[in-house]
């Protein structure tokens, strides 16, 4: 398999390219805030989805385990952050302590889910993970009694923003005359986290573990015969995927300042699956593309569909939200039918999906 970033080939050109992309990404919020700070917020949510999709990609794309309850780990991360940094329990720990805790707790949940279920066949595993995701949500929604832990459906409000010393990421600052709004600061933080996560993913894919995942995905029996501890390797995938979800969840809680169980419903899990599938399971860049595409689609629809229908029929016939869901559904079906490896297929995955499979 070819490494995704071949630095040895043409170093100069590559570095210029990377630098250009980096500058563009760093400058993006300035451009966006010219249109409106809203768009910076939308970009932030898109980056959060990229993080989620990359985390899920480890489980689905690398290790080939379909997880339909991935949002549970996001929820765990978000609630860990909210409980440790909000007036609910009166705790206000700094984020650099909570985020690792959130990641660890999410990873623990990943292992808890994975340990008993990993011997299941792929489709059974998918259904069990779906059940797991629902169970986590139902618990979050009901743990307001008999002792109020999660505040149940009321959700947790006034969650602390990230603070680094005197720097508060949620407020608007003025640096050398340039106005830096809260969402912009979060954007850069998210961008940094995303770069780290991408690097980890790239390194993982080409590592010993990455190859072990690939082996397990291609043929578990053969992998075991080659001396791979398949259970350990699969558990590791679950734990790592979950911990990325946990980190994303913590950041979501702090950006929103308010979380409630309704943000972690089944549809969200399926949306992240759709991002991974659409972009190309196993291909980091494909997954990023899928996440960005699908998280901007609702916004684009919102700005185009409604005015278009109003102009055409004088009223709104089909809501953008419904079109969005129909598009998600269609994306899942059409991609599977016509481009099973996704928009940007990973080379291995493509070979695998093209081949015939015997039952």
């Amino acid at each position: 398999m070819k490494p995704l970033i071949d630095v040895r080939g043409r170093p100069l050109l590559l570095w210029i390219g990377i630098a250009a992309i980096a500058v563009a990404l760093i400058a993006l919020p300035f451009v966006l805030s010219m249109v409106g700070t809203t768009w910076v917020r939308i970009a932030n949510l898109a980056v959060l989805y990229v993080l989620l999709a990359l985390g899920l990609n480890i489980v689905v794309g690398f290790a080939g385990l379909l997880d339909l309850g991935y949002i549970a780990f996001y929820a765990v991360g978000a609630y860990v952050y909210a409980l440790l940094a909000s007036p609910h329990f009166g705790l206000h720990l700094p984020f650099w302590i909570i985020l690792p805790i959130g990641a660890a707790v999410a990873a623990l949940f990943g292992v808890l889910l994975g340990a008993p279920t990993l011997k299941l066949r792929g489709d059974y595993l998918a259904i069990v993970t779906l059940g797991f995701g629902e169970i986590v949500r139902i618990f979050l929604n009901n743990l307001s009694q008999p002792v109020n832990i999660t505040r149940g459906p009321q959700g947790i409000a006034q969650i602390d923003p990230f603070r680094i010393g005197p720097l508060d990421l949620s407020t608007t600052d003025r640096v050398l005359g340039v106005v830096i709004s809260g969402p912009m600061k979060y954007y850069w933080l998210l961008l940094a986290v995303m770069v780290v996560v991408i690097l980890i993913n790239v390194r993982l894919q080409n590592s010993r573990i990455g190859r072990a995942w690939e082996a397990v995905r291609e043929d578990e029996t053969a992998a075991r015969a080659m001396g791979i501890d398949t259970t350990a390797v699969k558990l590791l995938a679950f734990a790592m995927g979950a911990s990325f979800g946990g980190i994303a969840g913590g950041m979501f809680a702090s950006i929103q300042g308010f979380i409630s169980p309704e943000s972690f419903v089944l549809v969200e899990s399926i949306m992240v699956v759709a991002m991974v599938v659409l972009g190309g399971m196993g291909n980091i860049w494909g997954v990023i593309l899928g996440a960005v595409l699908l998280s901007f689609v609702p916004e684009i629809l919102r700005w185009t569909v409604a005015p278009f229908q109003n102009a055409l029929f004088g009223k709104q016939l089909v809501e953008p939200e419904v079109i969005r869901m129909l598009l998600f559904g269609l994306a899942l079906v059409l991609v599977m039918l016509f481009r099973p490896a996704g928009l940007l297929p990973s080379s291995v995955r493509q070979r695998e999906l093209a081949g015939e499979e015997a039952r």
Partner: protein
Amino acid sequence: MKLKLGLTVLAASLAVIGCGDKPADTKKTAEVKKDAPPPPPPSIEIKIAHVGPLTGGIAHLGKDNENGARLAIDEANAAKIKIDGKDAKFILVPEDDQADPKVGTTVAQKVVDAKVAGVVGHLNSGTSIPASDIYNKAGIPVISGSATNPKLTEQGFKVQFRVVARDDQQGPAVANYLASAAKPKLVAVIDDATAYGEGLANEVEKSLKGANIKVLPREKGTDKTTDWKAVLTKLKGRNPDAIFYGGMDATGGPMLKQARELGVKAVFSFGDGACTDEMAKLAGAAADGLLCSQAGLPPQAADKKFLEAYKKAFNVDPILYAPFTYDAANLLIEAMKKANSADPAKYLPELAKIEHSGASGKIAFDEKGDRKGAEITIFTMKGGKLEPTAIVKDGKSVSYAEFVGGGAPAAAPAKDEAKK
């Protein structure tokens, strides 16, 4: 100050990409005055946003709320109000939050970006609470006409107001009425595990316990539950005298029907989410005798002038909180007139101490931004129709006949609260 930007080394490079301007939520306040240089056109544009779900399951309620605000703004424009010596032109900025907290914050930011002078909304507590933080940071006054969760005004945000009764005003009202009308010794409380249903059920339970009435352990469904048989059968074994349900009509209807099928004899009492005419359709004859509450005054006692104007403008009757959003928009305009400015920083103090006679009755705010002395109406289902039986205000209950006979002031229709 923004113009200095080109001088700085750091910014110079960024400016090329277009970083420079529109620092969004910082200059929201000064905007109005700056954009209207005194001499040539002596007019001033004042944007007021309305935010509510215009798509999704409760879009019809969102539209109703928006209509209320729109009516107030149209009337203000027709009245040719002068602010700071200039002709004020009010513009409604309608936005859709899909009743989703995540979308709610995005839209709140959008409204702040649009530099509105004030906000009417949001419809749901679930979207209002996260959005309030954004309005607070931007210093823009926001009045909700329908978010009933106490938490909203408990966050200590100076810009947040509401003109509707809180859950902890409605809960005690319906609980006390239930206690005095049905004289139950044992009550079961059920909720649908949503922010609205649970919140209201908690308040009812608290009041019942305060009145020394025994309450069974809470039973719960979801906002999609149609099978209540297991829960009801269990309750049948406990034989409560009354059952309160905090939830919507879509789930409350089947519950009522199944309870009567199982032979549960208890008096049923619902909150405003299930206090709709739909109940008669969903539960049929089983709905008879149901007690339920709505925030505000019943349509029959409503402000004729508002009802007529609304009907004339939109060709439909207001379905629920429209009078409240109408009042909310009028309150913003009124405060701007008093302060003689559309600058939020200047008119906010006026808003906090305003006294206004609106479509939903007399309005004044307490120090938290909640409405003082909000009314709650108790209805009884008789022959498939909801009939007002009592009005509860400041903890005192007056029978409806007495209330109407006493020549009460104008008021408004109110109906179901949004789910979230």
